[in-house]
């Protein structure tokens, strides 16, 4: 089974974000990590390899520093890693990113493509499903369970809907985007980190992908501004030492201010 995992490098969700006056965020001293959901995607791919054999290839679109995230995937156990790096991709929108990934993936004919359901920098959740369309693969997004019947050539997945669970049968090859509840990602073991050190990360630009600027297309969506959200300030604080008085304060609040009682 050959599985391709698409990953992204994003700021650590615990890191404070400093917005730059000229646009974008200030990356100095910013802790950049593999997108949390992509760890789950990588783990899913590694488990498929443990079950069925084959290779796990990890690919990312991004600047040079993205190598560290690819290195982490290699340290978790991925067999090979490729960085798609091109100035034209620096300010790419999601569909352009999907086109670049599709160009790489088409040359590989995988049995499964796995992505995180979203990336925690922009929460867009666009690249996965767009990529499935471009590759003409059936898809299942935000899956919480994945069972493969490689012999029969399909997967059975669970998806969490609002208030319901959907069980889908998806023929392979297919694209999946994964939820957090799918698995527990392994830590890169320290021997794994040492082995990953010796693996080469391939770097491809658009020309190497055979993708012309025309095929990449112009950006349809552009991020034109970033602002800090309006702050919430603390309201009233009540000492709950007297629970009855506290309850009265809450009930009054729910009735008069929040208007739900």
């Amino acid at each position: 089974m050959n599985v391709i995992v698409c990953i992204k490098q994003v700021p650590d969700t615990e890191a404070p974000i400093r917005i730059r006056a000229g646009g974008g965020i200030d990356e100095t001293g910013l802790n950049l990590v593999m997108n949390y959901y992509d760890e789950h995607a990588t783990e899913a791919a590694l488990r498929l390899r443990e079950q069925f054999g084959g290779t796990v290839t990890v690919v990312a679109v991004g600047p040079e520093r993205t190598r560290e995230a690819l290195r982490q995937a290699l340290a978790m156990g991925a067999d090979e890693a490729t960085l798609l790096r091109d100035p034209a991709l620096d300010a790419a929108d999601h569909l352009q990113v999907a086109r670049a990934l599709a160009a790489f993936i088409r040359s590989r004919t995988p049995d499964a493509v796995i992505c995180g359901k979203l990336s925690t920098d922009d929460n867009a959740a666009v690249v996965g499903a767009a990529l499935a369309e471009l590759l003409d693969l059936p898809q299942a997004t935000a899956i919480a369970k994945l069972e493969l019947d490689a012999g029969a050539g399909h997967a059975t997945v669970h998806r969490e809907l609002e208030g319901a669970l959907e069980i889908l049968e998806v023929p392979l090859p297919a694209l999946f985007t994964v939820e957090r509840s799918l698995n527990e990602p392994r830590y890169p073991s320290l021997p794994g980190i040492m082995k990953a050190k010796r693996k080469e990360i391939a770097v491809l630009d658009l020309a190497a992908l055979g993708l012309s600027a025309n095929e990449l297309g112009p950006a349809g969506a552009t991020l034109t501004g970033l602002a800090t959200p309006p702050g919430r300030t603390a309201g009233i604080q009540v000492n709950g030492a007297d629970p009855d008085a506290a309850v009265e304060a809450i009930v009054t609040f729910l009735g008069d201010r929040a208007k739900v009682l």
Partner: protein
Amino acid sequence: MNTDLSEDHRLIQATVRDFAAKEIVPVAARLDQEARYPSEIIARAATLGLMGLMVPEEYGGAGMDSIANVLVQEELARASAGVQVIVSVNNSLVCDPIVRYGTAEQKRRYLPPLADGRSLGCYCLTEPSAGSDAMALETRAQRRGDDWVLDGRKFFVTNGVEADICIVYARSEDAPGARGLSAFLVEKSFPGISVGKVEHKLGIRCSSTSEILLDDCRVPAENLLGGRGEGGKIALATLDGGRIGIAAQAVGLARAALEDATAYVKERHIFGRPLSNFQATQWALADAATRIDAARLLTYRAAWLRDRGARCTREAATAKLIASETAMWATHRAVQLFGGYGYIQDYPLERYFRDAKITEIYEGTSEVLRLVLSRDLLGSRGNAHQ
């Protein structure tokens, strides 16, 4: 001089930090309160390769350098100094001397289980009447046929209860001091070795500290580690690595205190303003941060020298001395900043404070370290313990 960490070192640090935050921090307080050995965590740590960090890959280790070790120890200690010392002793005081002085057969036999978590190691040097004056130890080793027979009492042994592989230092030669000592690899399954009294400690309570009793303990001749009479040299050289590990432990503890205090003073309000608004608080945090920074860099330097195969006795002693005193200072200050909350077990500050004290004592008390350093300065030759 590049003080940046390499990409691999950063990944190692991030991985262990993540592991510690997810798996050690949530249980650290309970492990300390119950003085319970963290067997599940140690098993997980072994899966990650943390128990044989510097053991060559061919023996199942991670094949990493001392800088990587220091990074790992600091991250573990930030979460729990007790868990960290279990790992540190296994790495620096047991695996390391086997790697450096062991025969191919000894390495093949002992390193893989120590690295993968099947076995735990301990280091038996100290005796009731030979602590700082360790080279005066009295445990005897006598040849009897194909075996050595060891008799004596070792004490304050970290991992004493759970360890299966003990490096025991005993007097094998008719010579006083360091030159009379040899090192032995003793399995708990050998006849005549047992665990004696188990200590109840102020801190690092989830790691066991016990006596190891040797009563006509038969050790096969091939379990001599290094040459006869080399035990003193091995013990002291091993302690250099051990001290670097403890320095990292102290840095981790100090950092725990600083990070928790920094978060706290931003939230806690007194007289209508956050504590962080008061200059005394600001200065205390700045002092802690600068001292921790210095201690960390000293620790890195010692590790860096060790990786180059250079002698690092002075640098390891310096690092441990400064780091342990920093840990005491920072944890003490942090408890004070937290006020009443620093004294109760609902918050980890009191545990950091209790854990920090041992860093000034074991693997060379601050007094012994001062002796080592002053002798280095004043040009006194020979054994620092004579």
